[in-house]
């Protein structure tokens, strides 16, 4: 008999084959983090039911690695096992797609065999679906069934689970339909698999789909088949979830047979062995220590009043957070009359309606509502649906609440389900705001869904961690990495208690190192108030105190602080009488949701339209005021100006035929230069235009590195778009290690990606092989350029050298002219702000951030908040600055100069736009922050990537604008 055991990240599969390789036994079971224990039990059962005796056995799967090492049983790498099984059971296929709990794999069988696994930054497929289902309060079966009923698919970032979640969360809060979200979740997995794994190879022909998720989830299957346009080519073999185990059994059969009792004994030995993952100090050394800790924190209660007897005025606060909904009612002495806290279940409106109705009934006759305010992700939806008086930004709400507990508060940290918000206060004014970026989001809800996946409540799970002896070290990059670290710890045999404590420490480290980035506790402040539901977890609170080495204040209502603050805010505004929806209207409350594409401009935003009580409309998903019927105020915005200016370079017929320029990366600034040069030489110069989602999708299959920045990834789509033009025979995209020297830095490089991406395109985009693709190394900054360019174009196109030299001259003039127009725009914008008394925000990034698909409309969002927007390149070159970093990239020198400019002017602020994966901005962001903070300014950064949703950016920008 041949036994194969596949210990995956979430399940164990055991298969027994007879000598003809027929399956005589198979079993599939979730292991709930007890992978080895489960494996031993399942093997025991398997041996019992098949009789045991002399067997061959092999292990496979990501969680079997160290078990194999300890037990000495043979290990078969799982992708390899899949291949063996497919060859034996299915035979004639061209490719295999296998999705597991954590890893995704693609095997190409025909046309040069190749096996691929996802990179570290794109893990967690199955685990991601589990988390999303729990976020939507659906079982996997329900999620799957719903997905089949979808009408509409949203663009959801497909980089990884964390990014996708950042896109989904706001959709939920806007009231998008669950069926559509379910299908969109699947679609993002499909995109991720194609982009991250296929890397230039087309998945076509007969394709076999394997692994748990693809076996059980019909909707996911359907998305794969339709996206890959496979039709009949899709193969869903029987026992698809067992292929790895079968492959292990087949491969293991090549080894020596052993006595089954011996195999079992060896595997059991692995079960007992000790955990090797790095461990941390326990959260509490003793029960006494915990008791003292509990006593200290018990002091921060809130006075309450009985709502059943109270007679008088009251104010309502609502916090529609990412994962929970909170409601608080206070009396005239700020005492708590009523509070409510519950999971939002992906539908904040329904979650709120019941408690709100109950509250109104309780108040009826006796208590007069004098005002109501709402905050949180669901702010606008709730405000519109229930007619709430005020909508306020989270930071404001939290500040109002924290001040109530500690008048001297100078640092507030709030860890909610999705976001972490920290802010420093100086003399009662917000001094700096730190919000997590996409990568470190979702920590709070991660613990929640993790606990529930293991069958614990959050409380019980947290309590387990308090006295864990050896908390495991799970790193702090993001929840996908943490999840993967958990698997490794489990794989090494760590217990649930150690994992619970380890997760708490990881979440805290994430906050301290990634969000706050403080060196020591003194930097944080003297009086620290912690809040947010996540801090109700004692393990987290303790880990935080240990990490910063200081005691903090946790209000007993830590989870309600947003709502409490909103209520206090409403009270401070004294409106007289609240306009809140009445009891009758609320009883008969109805909502209808529709999705539609806005056709008012080229952006084509996907709108979600909510209609309340059959009349009142609320539209979301828009990036500007047009679909709301509002005429946007015409404020200067250099992003729009630059975009229009670039698009004014149109092709002119030329004797040398068409030549194409991909509009991205460095080309965003050098288009005027190359366009003029080539036009003057006699080419008809076309470019690939602005990016959009479709363009990205069309090129994503040739992206070799999934961690490169989004602007670089878009280049693949730009090339595809150029190649669509059949008349185009030449594409020109020069490599430029150096940029122009603007005299602001120690050197004037381009970053490695901007400099050399043209070579990467040549090596990966097969379409370029069928045309003339020119990616010469060029250095227009050098005095030799006219001569070298003349030589180059003479050699390649037989153009007279004199002609080229003149064209080069024109190109320099065009570039100058372009730059001057932008500088002049900057001058006008600043002047406009001055005369109209407006604030200016320098939305500082790179020239290629002008692309709407790159900035996702952040500029419009800022305009809608009433500020003048300019970019860093609107400022004329300044004298060289003294910095504490090497200032050697042209684009980045502008950032430092812009930061200095903002730091010196009262009405100017700077917001840094950073593309995910931009290594250079790891250096610039800290330096820009220092420059701004030295000038007493708040540093704000917005990380952009594929993520389409501006929810988090909006909080940041509103916080910045309301800070002073």
């Amino acid at each position: 008999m041949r036994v194969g055991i596949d210990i995956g990240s979430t399940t164990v599969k055991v298969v027994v084959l007879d000598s003809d390789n027929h399956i005589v036994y198979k079993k599939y079971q979730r292991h709930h983090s007890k992978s080895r224990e489960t494996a031993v039990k399942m093997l025991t059962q398997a041996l019992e039911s098949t009789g045991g005796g002399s067997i061959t056995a092999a292990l496979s799967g990501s969680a079997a690695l160290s078990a194999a090492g300890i037990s000495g049983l043979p290990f078969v790498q799982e992708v390899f096992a899949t291949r063996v099984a497919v060859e034996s059971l299915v035979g004639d296929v061209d490719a295999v797609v296998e999705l597991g709990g954590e890893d995704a794999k693609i095997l190409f069988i025909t046309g040069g065999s190749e096996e691929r696994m996802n990179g570290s930054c794109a893990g967690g497929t199955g685990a991601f679906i589990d988390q999303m289902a729990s976020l939507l309060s659906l079982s996997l079966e329900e999620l799957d069934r719903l997905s089949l009923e979808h009408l509409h698919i949203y663009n959801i970032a497909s980089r990884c689970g964390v990014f996708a979640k950042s896109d989904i969360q706001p959709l939920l809060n806007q009231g998008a339909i669950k069926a559509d979200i379910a299908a969109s979740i699947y679609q993002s997995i499909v995109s991720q698999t194609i982009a991250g794994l296929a890397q230039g190879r087309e998945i076509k022909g007969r394709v076999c789909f394997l692994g748990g998720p693809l076996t059980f989830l019909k909707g996911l299957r359907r998305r794969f088949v339709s996206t890959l346009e496979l039709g009949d080519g899709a193969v869903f073999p029987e026992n698809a979830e067992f292929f790895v185990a079968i492959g292990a059994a087949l491969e293991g059969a090549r080894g020596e047979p052993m006595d089954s009792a011996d195999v079992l004994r060896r595997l059991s030995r692995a079960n007992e062995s000790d955990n090797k993952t790095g461990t941390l100090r326990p959260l509490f050394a003793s029960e006494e220590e915990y008791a003292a800790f509990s006593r200290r924190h018990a002091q921060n209660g809130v006075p309450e009043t009985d709502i059943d007897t109270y007679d008088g005025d009251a104010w309502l606060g609502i916090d529609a957070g990412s994962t929970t909904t909170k409601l608080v009612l206070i009396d005239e002495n700020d005492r708590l009359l009523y509070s409510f806290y519950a999971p939002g279940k992906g539908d904040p409106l329904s979650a709120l309606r019941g408690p709100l109705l109950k509250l109104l009934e309780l108040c009826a006759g006796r208590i007069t509502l004098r005002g109501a305010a709402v905050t949180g992700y669901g702010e606008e939806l709730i405000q519109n649906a229930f007619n709430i008086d005020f909508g306020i930004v989270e930071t404001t709400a939290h500040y109002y609440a924290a001040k109530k507990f500690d008048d001297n508060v100078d640092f507030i940290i709030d860890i909610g389900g999705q976001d972490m918000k920290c802010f420093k206060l100086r003399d009662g004014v917000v001094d700096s705001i730190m919000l997590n970026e996409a990568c470190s989001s979702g920590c709070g809800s991660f613990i929640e869904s993790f606990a529930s996946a293991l069958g614990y409540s959050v409380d019980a799970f947290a309590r387990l961690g308090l006295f864990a002896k050896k908390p495991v070290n799970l790193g702090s990059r993001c929840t996908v990495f943490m999840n993967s670290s958990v698997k490794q710890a489990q794989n090494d045999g760590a217990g649930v208690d150690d994992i619970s404590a380890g997760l708490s420490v990881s979440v805290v480290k994430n906050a301290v190192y990634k969000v706050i980035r403080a060196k020591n506790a003194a930097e944080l402040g003297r009086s620290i108030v912690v809040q947010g539901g996540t801090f109700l977890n004692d393990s987290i609170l303790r880990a935080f105190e240990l990490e910063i080495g200081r005691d903090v204040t946790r209000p007993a209502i830590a989870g309600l602080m947003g709502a409490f603050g909103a209520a206090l805010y409403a009270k401070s505004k004294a409106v007289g009488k609240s306009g809140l929806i009445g009891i009758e209207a609320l009883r008969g409350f109805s909502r209808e949701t529709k999705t539609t594409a806005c056709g008012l401009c080229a952006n084509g935003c996907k709108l979600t339209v909510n209609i309340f009580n059959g009349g009142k409309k609320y539209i979301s998903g828009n990036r500007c005021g047009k679909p709301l019927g509002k005429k946007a105020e015409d404020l200067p915005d250099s992003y729009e100006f630059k975009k229009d200016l670039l698009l004014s370079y149109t092709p002119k017929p030329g004797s040398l035929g068409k030549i194409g320029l991909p509009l991205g990366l460095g080309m965003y600034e050098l288009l005027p230069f190359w366009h003029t040069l080539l036009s003057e030489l006699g080419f008809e110069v076309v470019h690939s235009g602005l990016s959009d989602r479709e363009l990205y999708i069309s090129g994503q299959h040739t992206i070799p590195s999934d961690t490169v920045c989004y602007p670089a990834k878009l280049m693949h789509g730009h090339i595809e778009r150029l190649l669509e033009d059949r008349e185009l025979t030449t594409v020109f995209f020069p490599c430029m290690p150096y940029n122009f020297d603007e005299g602001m830095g120690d050197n004037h490089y381009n970053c490695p990606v901007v400099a050399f991406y043209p070579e990467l395109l040549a090596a990966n985009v097969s379409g370029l092989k069928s045309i003339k693709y020119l990616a010469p190394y060029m250095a227009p900054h050098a005095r030799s350029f006219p001569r070298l360019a003349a030589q180059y174009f003479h050699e390649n196109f037989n153009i007279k050298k004199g002609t080229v030299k003149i064209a080069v001259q024109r190109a320099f003039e065009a570039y100058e002219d372009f730059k001057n127009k932008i500088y002049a725009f900057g001058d006008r914008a600043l002047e406009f702000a001055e005369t109209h008394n407006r604030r200016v925000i320098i939305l500082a990034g790179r020239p290629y951030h002008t692309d709407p698909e790159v900035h996702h409309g952040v500029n419009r969002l800022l305009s809608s908040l009433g500020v003048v927007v300019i970019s860093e390149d609107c400022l004329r070159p300044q004298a060289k600055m003294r910095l504490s970093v090497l200032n050697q990239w042209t684009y980045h020198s502008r950032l430092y100069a812009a930061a200095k400019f903002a730091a010196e002017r009262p009405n100017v602020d700077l917001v840094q736009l950073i593309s995910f994966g931009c290594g250079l901005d790891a250096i610039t962001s800290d330096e820009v922050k220092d420059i701004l903070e030295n000038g007493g300014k708040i540093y704000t950064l917005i990380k952009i990537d594929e993520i389409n949703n501006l929810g988090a950016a909006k909080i940041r920008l509103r916080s910045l604008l309301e800070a002073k």
Partner: protein
Amino acid sequence: MMAKLVYDETGRLLFTQEMREEYTILVPMMLPVHMTFLAKILKAQGFKVELLTSTSREIVNLGLQSVHNDTCYPALLVIGQMMEALESGKFDINKTALIITQTGGGCRASNYIHLLRKALKKRGWEHIPVISFNLAGMEKNPGFKFPIKVYFELVGTVVYGDIIMNLSNQTRPYEINPGETDALVDMWTQKLLDEGMSLRRLRWTLGRIAADFGAIPIKKEKKTKVGVVGEIYIKYAALGNNNLEAFLASENCEVVIPGLLDFIIFMGDHHLVDTRRYKIKYKKAAVSYLIKIVFSFFQKRLIGAVRRQGGFRVPADFRTIKSLAGDYVSDGNKMGEGWLLTGEMLELLHSGINNIICTQPFGCLPNHIVGKGMIRALRDGHPGANIVAIDYDPGATQTNQENRIKLMLAVARLANGI
């Protein structure tokens, strides 16, 4: 009492003559053989030197605290390792200096030294001088000057370090008497330190080293040969790559790692490429030229010694690697490891080593292009190529990395029938 603090006109704290006498210089570990030589040479010049070999987990934590967490992993580790040493209490904070390599060029690695200074400032240790160790003559320090003889010794360090690393990698997996290779490495390291690394007898000494390694009795056993290329720190430093070499040894592989010589010649060469390509003047062109010529000369000596000995895989010279790379990337592609990385993969493929691990820090910018970006094209040109790219990062799990390497090994074994 700490030494008098002297600054240059840009405000940089200098390492002075006074410090040279009193201060201990902390050197981060990368290549054990080479670095041991380096430490010894500095000691012979009267410096107090301490090689940092700690691999404690605290390093990553201190790194995260000290630099932006999206900074490349090598910077995070090196700076974390230094912070750990400074916090350990083993060194007098007022009598310690740090040394770090500085490459120059458009990669963010040029900023390591500045990040280190920022980290020191954040910690309140601005008085600790940082010495830049580079070939290009950047950031001079009055207390860090050497007689010409030392420069020759530094050249010797690279040449001898490379040959010992190269040959020991070829005998260790096959030795009949366990430990014999490592004993020979220690013996030669000591001997060279004692005798001094004279360049005059270099050819003869290289021959003796080759002969000694050639005399190690080996088994005739077929092992999977695995080439390791990538970002320079991650490729070489066990701290950076989770003990990759030890892992591969435990998987019954022979590890093939390109030497440091190529990288140094590359550093000299790429400046010359710019002057040639764009006809721009480069002040230090003469130095670059000298570096290229001198190291190329000694590389030939090394290759000659290995070839004459017979029985060993003979490494290709710089010029060959460059011409191989030229079919895929231009020599103008020079940030980070630049075209050399693609070239090293090609050199491995051409010498029959199809199995390659391309290592890099998570999000390494140049490697997007010359590493991961070229794998597709390399596979197209070399159907047997079996290349896996592995990212290293404070959060990446070893299980994930090893599982991917195991996949590469399973494919390799299938192809080799092992």
